[in-house]
């Protein structure tokens, strides 16, 4: 991709149904590859966006297909930033972040890995909770490919 001095934004809105996540996956992966992230980095971005989308559909909207999940991809010279917004009540971030799903006592738990996966694969993960919940996922480009 040619060097960009300005950021570009791509907007996507999906109904709260898990089957739409495959489209989100393809777009997230395609954008990351287009930005010259490595395949492993692009997989990490796509896996993280999927987790944020899954949380929005499952926990934010409780599978109500009438409620839209909004996803904004912000492409800039130094980073890809993805905002995943739902209209739910949010969650207790401090409580969730205290849990380490790789702790031997938690390793066989069947839930509770989504945010951990995002934080492991992205450079920055933040949440804005107020008017709904927005996960903000950032992956920085290496200087060599900016």
């Amino acid at each position: 991709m040619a060097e960009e001095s300005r950021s570009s934004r791509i907007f996507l809105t999906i109904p709260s149904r898990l089957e739409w996540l495959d489209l989100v996956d393809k777009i997230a992966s395609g954008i990351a590859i287009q930005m010259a992230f490595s395949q492993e980095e692009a997989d990490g971005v796509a896996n993280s966006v999927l987790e944020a989308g899954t949380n929005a559909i499952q926990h934010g909207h409780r599978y109500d297909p009438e409620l839209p999940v909004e996803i904004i991809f912000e492409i800039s010279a130094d980073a890809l930033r993805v905002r995943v917004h739902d209209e739910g009540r949010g969650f207790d971030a401090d409580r969730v972040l205290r849990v380490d799903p790789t702790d031997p006592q938690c390793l066989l738990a069947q839930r509770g890995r989504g945010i951990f996966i995002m934080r492991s694969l992205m450079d920055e993960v933040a949440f804005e909770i107020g008017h709904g919940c927005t996960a903000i996922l950032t992956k920085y480009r290496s200087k060599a490919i900016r």
Partner: protein
Amino acid sequence: MKASMRTEGDAAVIALSGQLMGGPDAEAVRQLIRENLEAGRRKIVIDIGDISWVNSTGLGILIASHLTVTNAGGCLKLSRVSHRISQIFMVTKLHTVFETYDSVEQALRGFVG
């Protein structure tokens, strides 16, 4: 997600394709695991080579399958785990839980007895 099943001697091979992401996927996999255990097959391979991605809910399905089979005295193995899914297994340390093999045949040979 689509699922199919075949037997290889006293073992079962459950082949999954598409995306593993919870919802109805969980019941489909649970049903196949249950059917095999009820039929006395306790050596089970889940082939995920045609799964394009797994989210954390899909991981829960694999963990539930592992627990169900091991609690019944059986053994569950995974075959053809992609680089992308391996990435998730590594960060979550689930690579220490699941036995993984490059092919179904290798997984079947890995069963003892």
